[in-house]
């Protein structure tokens, strides 16, 4: 019995024409994620097969659980497609578990196999009943579900299926730029866009000395967590102090936030072009704060016609929090460091800003010069390089 890990594709199998491209991407992503482990990998149209050599099964499975495009992860045994072998090996597998009820489920993809799947279920079920005492068949809610897949290249038997993350392989949709603050929402928005196959970079606006080094480190940490799912995130840190101070000096207090967001959108849109991305992503949630009302979105979004994706737009705060906890960003997000959106907050920010008024107010200062200055002073951190090189020899 040769032990291996089967990886089942999720939504990929609905993609008729492009399925090969999807599988190749997933195959590449798995290889990247498991770099450093010792294993064999093979792919075909139905599955990816992993044979672990010296790699630790648990570590590998935990890593697979962070890869999008995987529907199920199965620890299976490959055996010969010969009925007597199947019978014996399924019994051996059964004996590893303690259970009272069971069910056999057979899939006969290889139609040359002489016994049909219903018949295999019956015969194997009977054989198990003969050999293990005090157990029963239960087809609705069995303690133990035994799966037999008879395929052209052999037969696979297994019991447990571990759920993967679903979604599409990262990178299949090209690049997007996530506007990452230190809050709860934007990392979740990033996660959800990675899920649909977008490979992300992150942009963060810092305003030292108003914002602290800890706030920046917090964002780096959030990017590191997101990178577990993405694998190749660059974090672009924009020095935003001068623009923010200029806005504070020149703009009607109630419009400060609206104009600040417009500047951020402009900078993000220009950076997106530089990194050959297709869409901006952010954590805006409709109505959550003054700058996230629909009318605010109109006023802010009008500075660019690049698509802006807001994955959590229609989520309640609690739904976002739950997701943040699940993906592991919550504990970091709630660390109490000020980011540039929480300094210079007016007492009464405008809830329904007017686009024309925004345009007029912006005539008060030469923002284009300041934006250019921002763009040429961006600090870019490759998150992967950060995680891999640091301390590897020590830990």
């Amino acid at each position, binding site marked *: 019995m040769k032990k291996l890990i089967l990886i089942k594709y999720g939504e990929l199998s609905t993609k008729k024409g492009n399925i090969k491209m999807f599988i190749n991407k997933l195959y590449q992503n798995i290889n990247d994620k498991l770099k450093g482990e010792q294993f064999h990998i093979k792919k075909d149209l139905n599955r990816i097969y992993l044979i672990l050599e010296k790699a630790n099964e648990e570590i590998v499975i935990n890593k697979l659980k962070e890869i999008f495009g995987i529907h199920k992860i199965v620890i299976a045994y490959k055996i010969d497609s010969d009925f007597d072998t199947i019978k014996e090996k399924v019994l051996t597998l059964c004996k590893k578990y303690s259970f009272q009820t069971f069910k056999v489920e057979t899939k006969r993809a290889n139609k040359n196999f002489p016994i049909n799947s219903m018949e295999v279920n019956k015969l194997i079920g009977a054989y198990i009943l003969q050999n293990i005492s005090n157990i029963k068949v239960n087809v609705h809610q069995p303690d133990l579900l035994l799966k037999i897949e008879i395929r052209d290249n052999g037969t696979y038997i297994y019991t447990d299926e571990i759920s993967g993350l679903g979604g599409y392989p990262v990178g299949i949709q090209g690049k997007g730029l996530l506007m990452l603050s230190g809050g709860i929402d934007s990392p979740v928005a990033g996660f959800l866009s990675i899920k649909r196959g977008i490979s992300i970079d992150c942009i963060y606006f810092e305003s030292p000395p108003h914002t602290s080094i800890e706030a920046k480190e917090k964002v780096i940490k959030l990017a590191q967590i997101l990178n577990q799912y993405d694998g190749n995130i660059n974090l672009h840190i924009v020095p935003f102090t001068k623009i923010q101070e200029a806005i504070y000096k020149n703009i009607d207090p109630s419009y400060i936030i609206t104009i600040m967001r417009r500047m951020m959108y402009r900078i993000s849109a220009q950076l997106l072009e530089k990194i050959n991305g297709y869409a901006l992503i952010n954590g805006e949630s409709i109505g959550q704060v003054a700058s996230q009302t629909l009318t605010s979105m109109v006023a802010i979004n009008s500075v660019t016609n690049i698509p802006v994706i807001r994955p959590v737009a229609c989520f309640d705060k609690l739904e976002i929090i739950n997701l943040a906890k699940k993906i592991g960003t919550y504990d970091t997000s709630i660390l109490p460091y000020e980011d540039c959106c929480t300094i210079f907050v007016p007492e009464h920010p405008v809830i329904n800003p007017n686009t024309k008024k925004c345009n007029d107010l912006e005539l008060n200062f030469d923002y284009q010069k300041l934006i250019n200055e921002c763009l040429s002073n961006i600090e870019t951190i490759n998150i992967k390089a950060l995680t891999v090189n640091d*301390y590897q020899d*020590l*830990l």
Partner: protein
Amino acid sequence: MIYLDYSATTPVNEEVLNTFNKVCRNYIGNPNSLHQLGKEANKLMNEATKQIANLLKVKESEIIYTSGATESNNLALKGVAFFYKNRGKHIITTKLEHASIKETLNYLEKQGFNISYVNLLDNGLVDLSHLKSLITKDTILVSICYVDSEIGLKQPIMEIGRLLKAYSKVIFHVDGTQAVGKININLENVDLFSFSAHKFYGLKGIGCLIKKENIELEPIIHGGKSNTIYRSGTPTLPLIISLAKALRLSFENLEIKYQKVLKLNQKIKKELKKYSEITINSNEYSIPHILNISLNQIKPETFIRAMEKHEIYFSTKSACSLLDTFSTSLLALNKNEQEAATSIRISLSYLTTEQEIEQFLTFFAKEYQALNLKKREE
């Protein structure tokens, strides 16, 4: 030299020692200092904590660094007892526990806490229905070792934890000192968990107490905020980093290493079964790393000295127990007094070789024949 006392302590792994040396030299800052050197040290410490958290599947904030398992056990038991004393004063444990549990509970008994001992089944595992019957409204804590240091019995921690989940006021502490690095551990239903690095080829002087988020503790060492508010003192950065490394290495190829030890254990057992006067105390629930036997006809100290001449080293009972007393663990397992007074513990590692075992068995036979007084009289 043939070292068969790995459950007392293990030799440090060379890579772990290198890490220790490098961190001592290159990271001189106090992780709590605000300047650059402090920050670098702090960052490294956080990475180590993250690694430990990932390996044990707990949160980073749930890790408290201590000087070793004895301190972890003290902090867990006293910390819970003193923090929750208004909730109740009843604590349940087993007769298999290490001295650092036993003595701490004796101390707490003097402070007015009531200690109950849960029965063991014939196979040495905790009697779950008895445990259930011991729990009262006054019970605040249950402390049970994952694997005991004398007989090596692996307790059904998952099931005990599941049972205790039904009692929201009862906190579950597990002493995992003999389990970590040897077997797969699962902390899902455990509230507090102690271990020490020197049992898995790390350095002496560093251990952890895992404390789940929702549990509170009264600190026993007071001072400034260290890694956590539960244990003060300058973080011992080089030791912490070396622990993270030792833990990672010990988790590698766990199954392969386990199988190797199992094979060695079976080889010894098979041979020792031939001695009609020897009782093998470890059973099928014991981890293969620990093999406890009673010599019956020979005083264990005499036998240890005799084997020492051949540079073969193992322990009577566990290395931390007092000499010349009965093994309470063995008595708890219904062994007779002779058996409880003449036990030795052979503890194995994946580093142990077959040749070492063969040599051990040869000298064992020789010295056993020479010292077995009963045989001589006949």
